[in-house]
């Protein structure tokens, strides 16, 4: 066996690396973070530029930096969310948690928003962050705004392929763990992301898709939210729930642009778009019922902006205008709630 016997696999390796490098360069030049080339020019400039914005070593939140010590009369708001409150396509200065401080000032109040959101987080991960950091930062209220990641994870679990005989046979393979290092690395390549977003998502509608998450999956989500409420209260923080808003309502389904549908499918390959809408509607009703049962304040963001596609950049992420509107709705409701309580 000599090295030249392996010329075909070696050529394959060269081609794949070349393809990835080319696609990464293209993505990098367009401002995206990539696996080999790291953060894009915009992210680098932003990270190097304004040190008054976190996250920093001493301030682990997105947004304007505040000290741990609280100023008297300041309302300190914890935002537990995901990519919806992270600076994805919008700079840190324009995401809704940052804008909430401005809204507070406009209303004559001083607020400090601790934005603990991270793309991809599930409710339970947000609970873990809250329990790890909140005791030192002592927020007054904790606003929970998330649903999409949990619905995607739960639909994979409840609607995904099941081992046909798992019900009666001990599993031969071990319990599924977090994706391994090679799998995670593979999924961070630009080739993978482009193929999944542009090609796989177009095949998803060919599957037999579910028209809803189902009662068991929905109960799992609501139980996680209830855990958030209980844990926040145990830390002496007032929890606040927010209904989830999406760009289109069921009767506007036909108006949803195809790329937006494909975007949804690139993250969730089990639910139809109508099923998504149905699930959001049912879970929002569940949040309302929980708020009433546990006596938790709830802000109806869905009623305020749901179905206004001009405020969204895709099915459930906000444009700049959307962030402005969300900041207004949340701040107004939070301040009103405090006034009423006072």
């Amino acid at each position: 066996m000599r090295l030249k016997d392996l010329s075909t696999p070696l050529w394959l390796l060269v081609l794949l690396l070349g393809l990835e490098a080319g696609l990464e360069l293209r993505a990098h030049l367009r401002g995206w973070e990539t696996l080999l080339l790291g953060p894009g020019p915009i992210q680098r400039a932003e990270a190097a530029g304004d040190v008054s914005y976190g996250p920093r070593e001493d301030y682990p939140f997105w947004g304007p930096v505040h000290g741990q010590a609280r100023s008297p009369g300041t309302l300190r708001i914890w935002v537990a969310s995901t990519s919806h409150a992270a600076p994805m396509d919008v700079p840190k200065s324009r995401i809704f948690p940052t804008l909430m401080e401005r809204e507070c000032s406009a209303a004559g109040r001083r607020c400090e928003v601790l934005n603990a959101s991270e793309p991809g987080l599930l409710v339970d991960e947000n609970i873990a962050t809250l329990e790890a950091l909140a005791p030192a930062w002592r927020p007054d209220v904790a606003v929970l705004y998330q649903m999409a990641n949990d619905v995607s994870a739960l639909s994979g679990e409840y609607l995904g392929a099941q081992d046909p005989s798992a019900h009666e046979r001990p599993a031969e393979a071990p319990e599924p763990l977090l994706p391994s290092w090679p799998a995670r690395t593979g999924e961070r390549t630009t080739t993978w992301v482009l193929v999944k977003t542009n090609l796989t998502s177009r095949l998803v509608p060919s599957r037999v898709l579910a028209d809803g998450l189902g009662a068991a999956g929905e109960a799992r989500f609501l139980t996680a939210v209830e855990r958030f409420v209980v844990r926040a209260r145990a830390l002496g923080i007032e929890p606040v729930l927010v209904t989830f808003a999406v760009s289109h309502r069921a009767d506007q389904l036909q108006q949803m642009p195809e790329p937006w549908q494909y975007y949804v499918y690139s993250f969730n390959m089990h639910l139809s778009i109508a099923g998504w809408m149905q699930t959001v509607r049912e879970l929002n009703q569940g949040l309302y019922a929980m708020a009433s049962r546990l006596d938790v304040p709830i802000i109806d963001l869905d009623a305020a902006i749901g179905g206004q596609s001009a405020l969204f950049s895709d099915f459930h992420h906000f444009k700049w205008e959307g962030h402005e509107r969300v900041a207004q709705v949340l701040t107004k409701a939070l301040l009103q709630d405090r006034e009423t309580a006072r």
Partner: protein
Amino acid sequence: MNFNSPEFLLFFPTVVLIYLAVFRREHLRDGVLLVASYVFYMSWNWRYAGLIAFSTLVDYGIGLRMAKEERQRQRKALLLASLTLNLGLLGLFKYFNFFVSLAQDGAQLMGHDVSFLYHRLLLPVGISFYTFQTLSYTIDLYHRRIEHERSFIKFAVYVAFFPQLVAGPIVRAFEFLPQMHSTPNVTRARVDDGLRLMFQGLVKKVVLADTLATLGVDAVFANPRAFSSWDLLFGLYGYAFQIYCDFSGYSDIAIGAARVLGYELTPNFNRPYLSQNVREFWTRWHISLSSWLRDYLYIALGGNRGSPRRVRFNLMVTMVLGGLWHGAALNFIIWGAYHGVLLMFARKATKHDDEAALAVKVRRRALTFHLVLVSWLLFRVTGWENFVDYVWGLGQLSWGTRLSGLYYVVLAAAAALHFYPKGALERLGERFTRLPAPLQATAYAGLMLLFITVSFGAPSFIYFQF
């Protein structure tokens, strides 16, 4: 670490490069294969590496003793020790809970509870496969069909050889061990051919089997009442080709990976749905298992000798145990018994009648395919209720489809690949591997993009569970 996982994409080239570096030194070469095989096995669950090592050590020791032993009684005792140990471990891990559950049903009727007997041990990956391999070694040694293996490392590689460790083909010692005593035949042509087989297997698995499952089969079986009879029928056709592409795809990858390393494994499939009767089907489907069952069980029971009633008994026992080999569940036992009954009827049929008219052959093939199709329904259902729902749905004779056009396209592609003449496919493969390396690599890169495109997070190979 599945063959279609990113981990294997990293593992296999690394093993090949290390293997290349030590290729000229036999001990190191064997050592690399052994370490790689155990790393591969431990990627599922490291705890069970001890089990396969123990099994290897015991059968190696029994082999050494048997080679020195001339007294028949002692040789038989050694064989019995090997059978007891290997089948005992298989029984403990795979069947114990099943039999406890059967006993529990009976005990409950009499007001008793035996549920405390259940164990919570996981079933080690591939135990059914490597147990049959080690058993074939000691049985062949007992019958003096083979020489014993002196090198422990070589024997351990035979038991744990990673390309076929978890889902076959089940390799016999006389086929594999002699290859280990000569320098593996590795040339560029063979590496290219092995790589082609690996990609052919991945196409079967990722593009055809998994896509059939995710586009329709899983949904149809999960809730048969939500689909028309038409969809249920095509869901069943889909499953027939899914399981073929899944398992024969695995075998192709295993044979291809072994060929890259310079070893030959026995073919496991030969276009089974072209069989003209069920007897022929079992010479084309999972060939390494069916030939194992024939050689070590059916013939040991008496085979075709004896009265017709005895032969029928031998057939039924062999097929029921063959069904049970696939899994500790009633549907597998019924599946095996169903094939046993079909084989009884097929005993008088000629193995393959090339002289028959085309229309006759087509009719026989269609009949055999649909008889096998019924067995796949038994194989796939998740329980009695699921089976009843499925059959009830088929009986409604309702039309309309919820399955997408793409599902039918993939089903047609899987059928076309299966029915494509074997010789023509091989010639096509040979012509492809004669292309310049950059051209072959470009085609493979394109296929890899296709694999990423069509992977919806599908489950692992179906036969891993056996």
